[in-house]
């Protein structure tokens, strides 16, 4: 058993990757697996030798096919989606399956500068011997170019636009100039970039259209069906409650179903039976947020409510998830409560406590 809290994908799923690599393979240059095997790795199925492959992504296969085909055409891939739609998860597994190395990651923040994207300098070397290749400190991007691997950018839009634009030359000319040394790094076959970004968040820097044009964009959606979403949430809530040492109340599954139905209706802009159209609040209301609401509610129930999970404890957490813009979202929620929830059986507790709170 490893001491690490979490292993990278290529180590946790080494057996599956190995099984997939057997048999006749027609790989693009630099790839460890054939594109179809990569899709199988992500979506689950059987390897050529019959080894079962667990699904890594639950959702539309066509999206994963588009993503893999994009990387096969040496175009960069941008995964967009609201928080909690498995963007980083997909990007890690794609990198693990395609090049067997998912560790070349650049976490982009508002504080990320060009030195962290292109290359930095070892100043002791620089002062002692002057500019040279030895004085260069390569970044994950530079190492990926030199070794023909995939470089991952997490939350691409969080770094400043000027820094983002460093990538333009890399993406179109597949090379990175080092003017200080009058040389350049040329990307090896197999090099590519997978970036993830939030399409519904505040405090992000829009991609310039020059850069956006160099990416093929795949938007990862929220789960399609209620059942799927409830199952994901119940599973995750169970796991998280365990790590946090919270005893799970008995009625978790029922309450999850109710919270999910409220979230889905608000998110999709219509009631589940499709009869009443609704307005949507400004927040994303992702599956991850529903999980957070449940965990918050359970922890509140454990510490302040004798372990009883009630609509009241969940309602206060829901308000935080739904109302992101105090004026607009309150109006949206108010309308939803009065027109839909008021008359629905089984939701009386939510109606009463949510109405009290807004």
């Amino acid at each position, binding site marked *: 058993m490893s001491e690490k809290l979490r292993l990278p994908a290529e180590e946790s799923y080494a057996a599956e990757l190995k099984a997939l690599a057997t048999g006749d393979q027609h790989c693009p240059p630099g790839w460890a697996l054939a594109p179809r095997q990569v899709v199988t790795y992500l979506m689950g199925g059987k390897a050529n030798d019959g080894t079962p492959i667990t699904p890594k992504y639950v959702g539309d296969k066509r999206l994963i096919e588009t993503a893999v*085909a994009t990387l096969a055409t040496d*175009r960069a891939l941008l995964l*967009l989606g609201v928080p909690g739609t498995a963007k980083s998860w997909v990007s890690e597994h794609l990198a693990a399956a395609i090049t067997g190395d998912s560790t070349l990651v650049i976490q982009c923040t508002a504080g990320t500068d060009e030195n962290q994207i292109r290359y930095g300098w070892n100043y002791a070397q620089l002062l002692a011997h002057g500019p040279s290749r030895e004085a260069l400190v390569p970044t994950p991007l530079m190492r990926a170019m030199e070794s023909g691997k995939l470089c991952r950018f997490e939350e691409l839009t969080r770094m400043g636009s000027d820094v983002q634009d460093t990538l333009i030359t890399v993406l179109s000319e597949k090379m990175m100039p080092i003017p200080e040394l009058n040389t350049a790094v040329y990307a090896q076959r197999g090099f590519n970039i997978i970036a993830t970004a939030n399409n519904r968040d505040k405090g992000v820097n829009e991609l310039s259209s020059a850069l956006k*044009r160099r990416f*093929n964009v795949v*938007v990862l959606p929220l789960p399609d069906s209620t059942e799927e979403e409830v199952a994901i949430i119940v599973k995750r809530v169970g796991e998280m409650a365990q790590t946090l040492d919270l005893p799970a109340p008995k009625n978790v599954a029922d309450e999850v179903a109710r919270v999910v139905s409220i979230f889905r209706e608000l998110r999709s802009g219509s009631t589940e039976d499709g009869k009443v159209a609704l307005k949507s609040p400004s927040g994303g209301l992702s599956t991850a947020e529903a999980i957070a609401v449940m965990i918050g509610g359970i922890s509140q129930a454990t510490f302040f409510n004798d372990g009883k999970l009630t609509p009241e404890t969940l309602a206060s957490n829901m308000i935080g998830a739904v109302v992101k813009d105090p004026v607009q979202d309150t109006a949206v929620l*108010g309308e939803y409560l009065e027109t839909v929830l008021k008359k629905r059986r089984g939701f009386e507790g939510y109606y009463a406590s949510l109405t009290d709170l807004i």
Partner: protein
Amino acid sequence: MAGQVSLFGIRHHGPGSARRLVEALDALKPVAVLIEGPADASELLPMLADPDMTTPVALLTYAEDNPANASFFPFADYSPEYQAARWAVRHGATLRFIDLPASDRLGATAGDIAEEIAARAEADPVSHDPIGALATAAGYDDGESWWSDVIEENPATGPIFTAVADAMTALRADEKSLSAREAAREAHMRIEIAKTAKECDGAVAVVCGAWHVPALAERRSLAADRELLKGRPKTKIKATWAPWTAPRLARASGYGAGVVAPGWCAHVWDTRDGNRAAEWLAKVTRVLRDRGHFVSTASVIEARRLGTALAALRDRPAPGFAELREAAIACLCNGERAVWDDISAELLIGAGVGAIPASTPLAPLLDDLQRQQKATRLKPEALDRALTLDLRSESGLMRSTLLHRLNALDVPWGRLTDVGRSRGTFRENWQLRWEPEFAVRLVENLLYGSTIAEAASGRLIETMGKEAELGPLASLVRNAMIADLARATEFGIAALEMKAALTSDGPSLLAALPPMADILRYGEARTGTVEHLAVLMPRIVVQAALALPYAARNLDGPAAAKLRSALLAADAAIQLAKIEADIVAGWRDALGALLNDDQATRLIAGTAARLLYEAEFLTADHAADLLTRVLSPGTPVAEAAGFFEGFFEGAGQRLIHDAALRAAVDAWLMTLDEEAFTASLPLFRRVFSALDRTERRRLMDALSARSTGAAKGYGLTAGANEIWPAHQARVLELLTSGAAR
């Protein structure tokens, strides 16, 4: 020697099979072309080659005595049947329909057919579009891509239609027994084919749905087939051509044999294989650019590359519809499905409208009109004639419905002379006058349906779909309900629901209420259903109540005046319609909230106060307190004046009768300094000019306290008992003395 029969199994509206069919016909050069279609409409077929005929068009057959019982057979450019018919006319070949006659189909009661079709589609989607079903089974989204990948790229040698026939034979091998109707159809086709083969000397081409090929190729005895056809229903029918639209070719429109994406089919038909993907992406790009999206040529190149890569990933020889769609989403729409959905209606469905030559047989709409004129005993006259209808009688209702429907079709035979008057809900006054051009206008409506009722429904639905505002939409729904068009009413109410849910704009929500209240009241005189609306209206009231506080904030003069009249009309509507008490209470609470909301525009707050006061929701004492507070010296004069105007405009009489209110207003007026008073003078004039002379006198009397009694300004003078006899005597004396002289 009898003619040699060749069977061509095609996919209805399949451009791939249409192209192959034309090639096959060119090679075969048949002397007769037989097409799957109603045999009794054969004489109309050559008209397809008329240069004035523009696809899409539909062959319309309808029962002579009931045009509502009709069926359509649409043809597009890429329909193999259409291409076959044109080929036959061009080459002078005999051209005939061979399916069961329409009289059979229409003779069965409408219910039977509808049930049968539904049951068939549910039980057996394969027979309906076998090629589409095979494509779906192979994981394709689009039958055409499968056709070109599998049928056309088929490595086995031999003509394509043999391959199709083989596939169908395999599909039908373990078939359960056919429904009686299907069996009869195939028997009829077999008989017709045999008959033609006997008559002709040369090749005979049969163009039919791929599904039927194995059955038609089978050798069966004519006698057995004739036996199957015995006792089939029959009715008198008429047939004609009707213009059709591209959207109604789409399966989404409810046309069962329709295609998923007519736009894609047309594209496949119009382009050759080599550049199809690139040209399709260019079309996508053009639509995107028209919508204001920025799409560069480089992105189109990338989309093309991604499409190829996807096709390779899926083991397909060339990018098909699904691959190109996904490539377009990833490269041209920035991954946003919503952008694609936005353009897909224009791109995939299209908006093409067909045209028919002038020589087409008479349109069923005119037939229908003549029949209804007879039934309602209304004669078309070119002279003005007044007509009063009592909607409680059956004949009155029938006539009114007909006139309203014609109006919806833009055939204003009758005009309502008392539009907008809401006095009687069961009496209508019409002015009738028939103009010759009405017939032409009526025929133009054939596009929407084959009877007046259907066409009116169709046309109203189209207008409703385009209407963006709630108020006008509600009026359209009212029109549909008055014209007794259930389908349009239902559609309108659904659209209303949708729009209402998405708008949070207080004024437009309020604007929708008066017509809705009208419908609810009017619905009682009509036999139409109003239950949906009875659910929807309370919801809009709730929404309006929720939106009101936001709508009432920070308004300038004209906007406030507009909202005020909307508010008054909506409140009247709410009182007229019988709405549940707790919803009305919610509405009143919203009005009440306006009183205490400092941000609410004063004019609106005043109006709300007055509405509450009139509804006796606010007691006189409270109202007086409120007025005193709002009109007290601490409030800026402009704001106080706004509130005053909102409360009193159009309701000055209140001041005469309501001493407490009057005192509050009086006290406020006395506190105004000269400048403020002069500034507010026009306002006072507006409020008080609504009172007539006597009312103003009485108000003055009340103010100067010349009468202080409770009896509405007329009090009892002290000591009247003693004075009255003296007065009486004096009056009598005057009268009698006058008479003596």
